[in-house]
């Protein structure tokens, strides 16, 4: 913005006041707050379509309504739905994410503002000469609608990115819940395996004391029991740590130990969507993809804006007056504009074109990686389902049969107490495989939701 110097040219044409007022009204009258609420609602709408849970209402500042329900939700065993709800209500990181809407909105408001007019007053007391002037950049006014469109396009992108971040958090909560429940179940199994190994060592101690067992066998049993003990300790650590990771994902102030977890992972849904369905769904649902597309859109608009004003990036209308004490006071309009002799906007154009090319290529790259992500997650999902089915239908029932048959053989004195406990270990091992397969299924499903960009039915 240039201050019109009276020594430069004088513009004598008066600028109609009405035009100015009309141009400036929407700018000065714009209320950012009402629109911020709209941004928040827009984000929540995007989430409602994707999160697969009831999304709580939220104030324009990103604070969810219903914080009082969090304590109640935490008191009952967590479900994927209640866990996500808790995070949506109480996670400060989400409030920070929502606050980014305000930053984007501020850019929009800023872009829609016209540079303030500059008033200059000069008085030379020696010569009793007075001068005043008011200057206003007119290019700002001319570019205002286009600048607003660019900023709004960027705001739409920002809404998509914020919604994507919230969605990622939702998925993270589910993932952490699966890990915590699986870790608790595996911990229980490892404890039981440890108890079986300890029982084996106790039996060995008693049989050895009776004189029926070599030292080698006794020491072997004790070493095994100790190894199982180490395994149980490891599982305990993993379980405790996973609870804390869940607390982190929920964004609550409670401790991991205080969380009430469900007893077991949910069973598999009846079937999984096909790969083709998922790839198509991903193209419609991925928020980061939509944001990347919006970047292309905004870069295109920015290029248009740059192109429109490439030769005249700046220009000022002014009105100035001067006079001497007692003398006549003369006034008149002025106009200043830089002549595009040297800087004809080549650099600005190159910048804008490059930004558009980069945005387009990024969108294309994201489209490709999205498809691969979906296929990769789908492969894991399918394998995990089959593996789980193998454990549920065959491994676990067969291992249970092994224990039953070993018990009969023990009764027939064809298998020792050690053989019997070994059969039980095999059963517990199968139980662990069952839980790992089930948790891998859910983790793959959550990974798939990430890849598709929406929760799956």
């Amino acid at each position, binding site marked *: 913005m240039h201050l019109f110097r009276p020594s430069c040219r004088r513009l004598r044409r008066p600028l109609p006041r009405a035009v100015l007022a009309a141009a400036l009204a929407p700018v000065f009258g714009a209320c950012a707050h009402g629109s911020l609420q709209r941004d928040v609602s827009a984000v929540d709408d995007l989430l409602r379509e994707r999160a697969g849970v009831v999304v709580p209402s939220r104030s324009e500042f990103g604070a969810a309504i219903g914080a009082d329900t969090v304590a109640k939700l935490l008191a009952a065993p967590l479900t994927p739905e209640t866990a996500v709800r808790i995070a949506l209500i109480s996670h400060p990181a989400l409030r920070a994410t929502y606050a980014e809407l305000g930053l984007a909105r501020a850019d929009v408001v800023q872009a829609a503002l016209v540079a303030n007019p500059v008033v200059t007053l000069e008085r030379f007391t020696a010569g009793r000469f007075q001068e005043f002037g008011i200057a206003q950049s007119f290019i700002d006014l001319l570019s205002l609608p286009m600048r607003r469109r660019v900023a709004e396009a960027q705001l739409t992108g920002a809404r998509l990115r914020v919604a994507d971040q919230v969605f990622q958090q939702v998925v993270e909560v589910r993932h952490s819940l699966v890990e915590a429940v699986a870790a608790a179940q595996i911990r229980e199994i490892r404890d*039981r395996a440890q*108890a*079986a190994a*300890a*029982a084996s060592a*106790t*039996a060995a*101690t*008693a*049989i050895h*004391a*009776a*004189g*029926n*067992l070599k030292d080698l066998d006794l020491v072997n049993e004790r070493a095994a029991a100790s190894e199982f003990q180490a395994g149980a300790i490891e599982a305990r650590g993993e379980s405790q740590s996973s609870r804390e990771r869940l607390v982190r994902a929920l964004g609550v102030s409670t401790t991991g130990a205080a969380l009430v977890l469900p007893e077991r992972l949910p069973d598999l849904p009846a079937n999984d969507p096909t790969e083709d369905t998922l790839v198509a769904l991903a193209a419609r649902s991925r928020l980061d993809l939509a944001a990347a597309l919006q970047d292309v859109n905004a870069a295109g608009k920015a290029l248009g804006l740059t192109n429109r004003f490439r030769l005249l990036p700046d220009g000022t209308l002014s009105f100035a007056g001067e006079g001497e004490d007692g003398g006549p006071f003369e006034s008149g309009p002025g106009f200043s504009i830089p002549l595009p002799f040297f800087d004809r906007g080549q650099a600005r154009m190159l910048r804008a074109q490059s930004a558009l090319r980069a945005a387009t290529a990024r969108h294309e790259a994201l489209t490709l990686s999205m498809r691969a992500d979906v296929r990769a997650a789908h492969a894991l999902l399918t394998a995990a389902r089959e593996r789980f089915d193998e454990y549920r239908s065959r491994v676990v029932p067969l291992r249970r049969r092994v*224990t039953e*048959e070993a*018990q*009969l*053989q*023990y*009764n*027939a*004195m*064809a*298998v*020792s*107490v*050690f*053989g*019997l*406990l070994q059969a*039980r270990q095999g059963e517990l091992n199968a139980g662990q495989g069952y839980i790992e397969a089930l948790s891998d299924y859910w983790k793959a499903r959550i990974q798939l939701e990430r890849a598709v960009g929406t929760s799956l039915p």
Partner: protein
Amino acid sequence: MDRRRLLTSSLGAVAGGALFGLPATASAATRTTVSHDDGTIFAPGRPGRDYTPVITPNGSTLPFKIVDGVKVFHLIAAPVEHEFAPGLQAQCWGFNGSTPGPTIEAVEGDRVRIYVTNALPAATSVHWHGIILPSGMDGVSGLSQAPIPPQSTFRYEFTLRQHGTYMYHSHRDEMTQQALGMMGMFIIHPRVAPTRRPDRDFVLLSGEWKVLPGARRPDPNEMLEFNVLTFNGKAYPGTAPLMVERNEFVRIRLGNLSAMSHHSIHIHGHTWTLVATDGGDIPQSARWPEVTQLVPVGSTRTMEFVADNPGDWSLHCHMSHHTMTQMGHNGISMLGADAEMIDKAVQPVIPSYMTMGHDGMGDMAEMGMPVPKNSTPMMGAPGPHGYIDMGGMFTVMKVRERVRPGDETSWWQAPEGTQAREATPQELQRDRITLPEFKAKPAGHAHHHPPGDES
């Protein structure tokens, strides 16, 4: 045949060569083979008249018909679903629907024609163990004959020039076919009846098998760890008792076609005398009394005695593991172990667990715990005074004044004063018996039931 004279009695036999069954002579003592040039033809011996038929407990005698003066038998080798003892069955191979096959019974001098039909999936042959006959009739596959292919019938025919206790068994792929039960007894009665025929003439063929608890087929590859030991294919309590009347003259013919084990067969309540092997009669002067007779693999021993001691007497192999059935020799001995300590540790992991064997095996069989399908407790059956913790090669000889129907399942009632029982304090005092100090025993662990067992 038709040019030969048919004699109706042994008394008309030409005394040219050796006449077996006569009291041992110097010529018989030096004989190593039978003279086949004699050519004497005897009328086929008749059961009940020329001989007292043998009793094969749990078994049968092979029927025959007489065609042109020849005794014609028919053996059919085929797979058989065999029961060793109640609850324990296996896919075996046998003859005419059983293992061992039916006892073949004939008389010295008989011409026998034995058809062998092979209904097995494998080729086979039959060797007439201990019987002196033409080389081509000896049944050794590959050496004396071609193997009998499946679905074929071979004819064996020879004249019996000896008497005694013999056997028949497969002589092709013996490891497999004998392990699966292809064997039987072959009894040849003397043409000249002895001074006293036995009142009861029992045939017991020993065998051993490897059938893991829960398995359904004997394992022919086993060399050492046999877990089913049988008399006539039965393990106690599957063995039928030997019913005898008091003062009867009893003969017990013991055969052994176990794969790897000799057996010391022990009789209770009597002494018996070894009178013959599968090599022939033992001269009177060379016999000696026994209570336990070793029967090596692939031989027979014929024992005689007078059953003059009434009661229920066990007759069994004295090798202790041969009187166990399917007992796990793989488990670890729990003898002397602190059962409470083990139970307390293991029961939280396996609720149905209970320590066994810490006081020995005597109570094992009575526990009535569930055992694998198709297996039998390692020993025993309920007896008149508690559990009889014997299995395998164990049977009972019941000597009674008169054998009546139903006696097979009745128990000996001991007359007053002839039964061991707990000594009274008065008796102990009278005979100045001092007892050791006993510590009070904790509540009997051995008799508790596994938790959750409501029975």
